[in-house]
């Protein structure tokens, strides 16, 4: 039963979201045999499918635009920390990928004259963001990519497979190890190139827009393989995450585009508009960058002017049913199903963990410092610096995914396949065998540990940080990683053993959480999405990137500028 399932391929892609699927398509196009796997379902797991609306591309269809203008906006939002090579790749590559997706039947919304419609999202200087519809742009992209992937004879999809370790020999990738979620059988995949597209670590926060499968595993896996993380302290908190009443069937980020589109009013618990107190004009034109908005809402609650559930109100009560229906269409039915009547009541919103700007450090070929190890999508750091513009996540997925797949295929083709090393794979394979049923029936479950971590991260490593809270979190996370996870109780079940999945999520995710707390503690300033109560100003001496890597089992950090 514990026999190892062994496979072999040229390029292994881990993660079946938009970045992973695009990487698989590009690698196959480059002549490689590809396996793309996902812990959940290829094409349905991950965050891409949840993206509701905007995707930035300087197509110039709605008004004159240029990728260089998109780049200037991206760099401005990044507050001096962007890796300009990666930002330029994102902005210059996006139009091409958007056109390519169109040729794969993604129906971008159009104006009456037939040109692709583009809207102006916060922080952008032009009408630049394309969309399919108000609710399901990510889903439409994923459907097209899923279709494309399933038709390629060179791509093998594996759903319900969790990757646990990249295997290296003499510092070079020789493949990866994981397990089959459906049977708990160990899996070894021999491959000279591995592309990690496992998304961010936002699941580690109590309030999150993340799907359940984004536990920061890609960061932990990359660290253990010898790669470096960059700017991991920058994690975006979406200002208007849905808080109450409970709403299911719509992503919690649904309100920001709605607010932009319909002029929704943000009100504190007393029913007063408050953004003007934070340097924004009343009736602002929605150019408020996301971190400013987060700050304003957080502070309003802190000052005792919050709504009943501890957020602020977002009101559309100035609109009637007909106007709402005309603008929101099918979303109105979903609100109704959730007993939410926007003409009569405001909803409550509060910041929510949304996107990880930092990630694995890669060059413009998406190659990490480990030969054969690539990354793409949210898992990559550098393109967005200290804050990400609305609409830059989907381009990051498709542009970087394409580049990573192409690079990995070229790399795999250009070298003799390295010899597989049973000894190198033995340790991670043994861990997969040994983790199931460990401490069965005694100790806390990984699900409980995960719950504790989510509360800790939300409380201590959230939108507003300080030395004391971060130091406490760092100590606590280390204890969880070194002492409590090894003592956690994993079910003996073989079939769809959720506690085994969660144990491995924590094994890697605790490295990610620790890296984030450590990096946030080290950055003694406020910049972009990283806000310190004890260092409220941006400080020029910190206009540097912070890298984190593993050295003798311990995370270490260093600040330095980018070499040109």
């Amino acid at each position, binding site marked *: 039963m514990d026999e190892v399932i062994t496979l072999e391929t040229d390029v292994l892609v881990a993660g079946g979201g938009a970045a992973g699927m695009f990487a698989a398509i590009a690698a196959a196009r480059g002549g490689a045999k590809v396996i793309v796997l996902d812990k959940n379902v290829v094409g349905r797991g991950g965050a891409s499918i949840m993206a509701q609306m905007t995707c930035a591309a300087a197509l110039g269809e709605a008004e004159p635009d240029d990728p260089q203008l998109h780049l200037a906006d991206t760099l401005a939002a990044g507050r001096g920390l962007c890796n300009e090579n990666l930002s330029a790749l994102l902005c210059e590559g996006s139009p091409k990928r958007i056109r390519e997706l169109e040729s794969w039947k993604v129906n971008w919304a159009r104006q009456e004259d037939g040109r692709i419609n583009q809207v102006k999202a916060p922080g952008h200087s032009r009408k630049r963001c394309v969309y399919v519809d108000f609710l399901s742009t990510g889903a439409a992209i994923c459907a097209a990519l899923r279709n494309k992937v399933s038709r390629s004879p060179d791509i093998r999809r594996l759903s319900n497979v969790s990757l646990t370790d990249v295997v290296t020999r003499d510092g070079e990738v020789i493949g990866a190890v994981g397990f089959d979620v459906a049977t708990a059988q160990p899996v070894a995949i021999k491959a000279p190139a591995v592309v990690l597209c496992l998304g961010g670590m936002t699941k580690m926060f109590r309030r999150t827009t993340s799907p359940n499968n984004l536990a920061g595993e890609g960061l932990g896996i990359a660290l253990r393989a010898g790669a470096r993380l960059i700017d991991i302290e920058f994690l975006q908190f979406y200002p208007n995450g849905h808080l109450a*009443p409970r709403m299911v069937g719509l992503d919690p980020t649904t309100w920001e585009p709605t607010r932009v589109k319909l002029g929704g009013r943000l009100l504190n618990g007393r029913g007063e508009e408050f953004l003007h107190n934070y340097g924004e004009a009343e009736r602002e034109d929605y150019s408020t960058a996301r971190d400013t908005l987060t700050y304003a809402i957080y502070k309003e609650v802190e000052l005792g002017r919050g709504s009943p559930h501890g957020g602020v109100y977002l009101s559309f009560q100035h609109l009637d049913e007909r106007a709402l229906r005309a603008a929101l269409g099918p979303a109105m039915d979903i609100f109704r199903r959730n007993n939410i009547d926007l003409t009569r009541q405001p909803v409550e919103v509060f910041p929510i963990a949304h996107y990880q700007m930092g990630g694995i450090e890669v060059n413009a070929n998406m190659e990490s410092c480990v030969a054969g190890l690539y990354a793409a999508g949210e898992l990559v750091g550098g393109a967005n610096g200290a804050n990400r513009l609305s609409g830059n996540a989907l381009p990051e997925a498709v542009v970087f995914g394409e580049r990573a797949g192409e690079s990995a295929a070229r790399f795999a083709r250009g070298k003799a396949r390295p010899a597989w090393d049973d000894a190198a794979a033995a340790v991670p394979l043994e861990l997969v065998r040994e983790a199931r049923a460990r401490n069965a029936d005694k100790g806390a479950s990984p699900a409980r540990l995960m719950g504790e971590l989510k509360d800790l991260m939300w409380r201590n490593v959230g939108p507003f940080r300080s030395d004391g809270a971060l130091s406490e979190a760092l100590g606590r996370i280390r204890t969880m990683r070194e002492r409590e996870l090894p003592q956690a109780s994993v079910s003996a079940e073989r079939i769809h053993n959720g506690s085994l999945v969660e144990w491995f999520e924590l094994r890697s995710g605790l490295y990610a959480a620790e890296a984030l707390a450590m990096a946030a503690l080290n950055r003694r300033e406020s910049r972009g999405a990283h806000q310190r109560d004890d260092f409220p100003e941006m400080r020029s001496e910190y206009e540097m990137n912070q890298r984190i890597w593993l050295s003798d089992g311990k995370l270490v950090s260093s600040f330095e500028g980018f070499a040109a």
Partner: protein
Amino acid sequence: VSADSTMPLKSARLKVWRGTSKEHGHYDEFDVEFEDGDSVLDGLVRIRVTKDPDLAIRFSCFNANVCKECLMLIDGKVEYACIAKLHTGLIQLDPLPDRLILRDLVTDTLARKERF
């Protein structure tokens, strides 16, 4: 676990099918607290954290109804657990009919080509 921090006010009783084959199953009953609007999936996630981490369920997106993984029989009707609401009283949960049961509420819903 619900995203907001207010205390759940009501209690639902979930009667959950357990087992690995149609012939050898049984039901376990769990009381779960909820506030109005919470989903059946919220309840199942809460059971895994607080009562029985062995319970097999599957889902990815949790809130958005896009991953389509949490389909099951809820009081005899095929529904998404993320959309169905909890209510006071008994709610019976079974695996999808006409699908191979893997374990508990998880059935074999993947395309053959996506598996080994």
